[in-house]
Structure formats: C-alpha cells, structure tokens
C-alpha cells in the first residue's frame, strides 16, 4: 500500500491540537500559532482516528491503491 495522503483544511482548523494528541503514530506536529502540520506522512497507517476525533471535520485521509 502506498502512503496515505493526509489533508488538513486550514480554513476549518482551529488549532485545538486534538489530532496531534490522539494520533498513534505522531504524524502531526501542532503549535498554537500554525495549528496542526503534517510532519511524518510516511508513518501514517490510515487508522482515521484524527478524522473521527477532529471537532471541525477538517481532516481527510486519502488512501491510494497500488497499481
């Protein structure tokens, strides 16, 4: 499986830090100024914990199938 793509909609993100706290693989880095940033996208296992926990529905994960 190729690495999933983690997309954050910065128009919706309010920098609460929930996604970076609950990510089991520490994919995000979060600070109050810039909000969540995708840091280690290659570690993402597409568990979608961040998608479920994000209170703003701002995160989307796209899993591409290998051809």
């Amino acid at each position: 499986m190729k690495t999933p793509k983690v997309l954050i909609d910065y128009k919706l993100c309010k920098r609460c830090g929930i996604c970076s706290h609950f990510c089991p693989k520490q994919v995000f880095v979060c600070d109050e100024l810039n909000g969540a940033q995708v840091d280690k996208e290659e570690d993402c296992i597409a568990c979608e914990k961040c998608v479920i926990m994000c209170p703003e529905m701002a995160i989307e994960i796209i899993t591409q199938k290998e051809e």
Partner: protein
Amino acid sequence: MKYTGKKFIKKDSLPFFWCAGCGNGIILACLVRAMEENNFTQENTVIVTGIGCWGKADDYLNTHTFHGTHGRALAIATGIKLAKPSLEVIVLVGDGDGATIGGNHLIHAARRNMDITVIMSNNLNYGMTGGQYSGTTPYGSITSTSRYGHGEDEFNISELVKAAGAAYVAKETIANPLRLQKFISRALKKENGFRFVEAMSICPTHYGKENRLGKAAEMIEGLKKNSLKIDLIKDRRIDELTAKIIVGEYIDREVDGYIKRYREIQKKAQNKK
C-alpha cells in the same frame, strides 16, 4: 471510512461557530454518520434544536430543521411528529436546554414515549451564556455563578430518563466516538418509543478553564479515564462510583410508542359514532 455523513453537512456554513476543541463537532460528525448508516434522507428527517451551543448545530445541516425556543425543543418536536408521523424527528438539546430549563418536557416526553430521538450534549455548564452552572454541574465545581464551588448535586440524566419510561437510553463520552455513533445508530434504528442518547462533551473555554482541567485533548483524556462501562458496575461499591461517568446502554426495551396508541384511540372514537 465507510460512512462520512458529509452529504448532510452544509459546506458553505463551515467553519462551526463553536470554540477550538469543543466536543460538539465530534458529536455532530457521529450523528451525520449514523444518519447515513441508517439511510436517512434530507426529505424525511427533521432536526429540532433548542437554544445554546449545541442548539446551533442545525445551522450546519441541510435536512429540514427547526430552531426552537430555550428548553422547548421537545415540545416542538412532539408537535411535528404528531402532525406528520412519517417524518423522522431528531432533537438536539444541551444539558442546560434539555435537563435544566426543559427538564419537565424531557421527563414527560419520555413518560409518554413520544416516537422521537433525542441527542443530548452534556458539557456540564451553560456554555453559550458564559459558563453558569446547570443541572448537571457536579458538586464542588467552579463556574461563573459558583465561584467558591457548586453546592448542589447533579442530575444523572440517563437514569432519570430511564426511570421515566423511555424505550432506549444510552450514554457515551466523546472520547469514544465510534461507540457513540453505534449508540446513536441503534437509537435511530428503533421504530417505536422515546430514544435518548447522552453524549458527555467538554467545554474547554468555560468549565475546563475554571476547573483547571487543561486543554481540549487533556479534557478528553480525563473523560476516558473517568468512564466506566455499565456491565462492570455491579460488584463495585457506591462510593467507588461517585464522579465516574457510567457509559453504555442503560435500557433497550420494546414499547408501543405514542403514535400507535394515539391511532388506537382515534379508531375507538370513530367507531363510537
């Protein structure tokens, strides 16, 4: 994910009006996913809300909605269901709206077994008006109207609604959104009677700040740590259960529902002539 529920969300109205880290967004996401799971459509669903932070949820949904007055969302929903029983009526109330100001409507709707689903977001205070204490604020907590600690005990709303006779009562925290979605989905699937799901939420802006519970993520961890499944409480002492959030399905029983009984009465009245 199998269900996203995005077809029920009005994309133009985003971002949500709620504060950073507010749990209401998680509950709303659970609700729309559960609605998609049960094949709800925009045409057959009516969302009725009251006033408060959670009452603003109808602004972001593209189903039929009715924004009612404070505490009276259940009265309005009863009217809608009786006028057109084919509609699915979902009521969104907060703890201030549903349990404190509209507490009487809640117990009587449950007693009557009105065929509606209620999703209560319980964040332990009146968030929108500045963090005053509500009927669910625990003893000893600091709010803007109880500066030296709250002197009253709180309601256990799920037990109250169960005792009032509701068909389905469940409680879950936002620390476990998939289980919350499952409970909402089961409530929506039931055909008859009053269905009630209490979602324990957080208010990092008022309740969390006043009681020094940390940021949103820490508050969610706190909910997770404090919650206890209902199957595990039988062999515990009562003093062990204070300040614990007891999650799970409180009751799931088959009842007639008010619409069915009302139709029977209508039939009797017609035959009498």
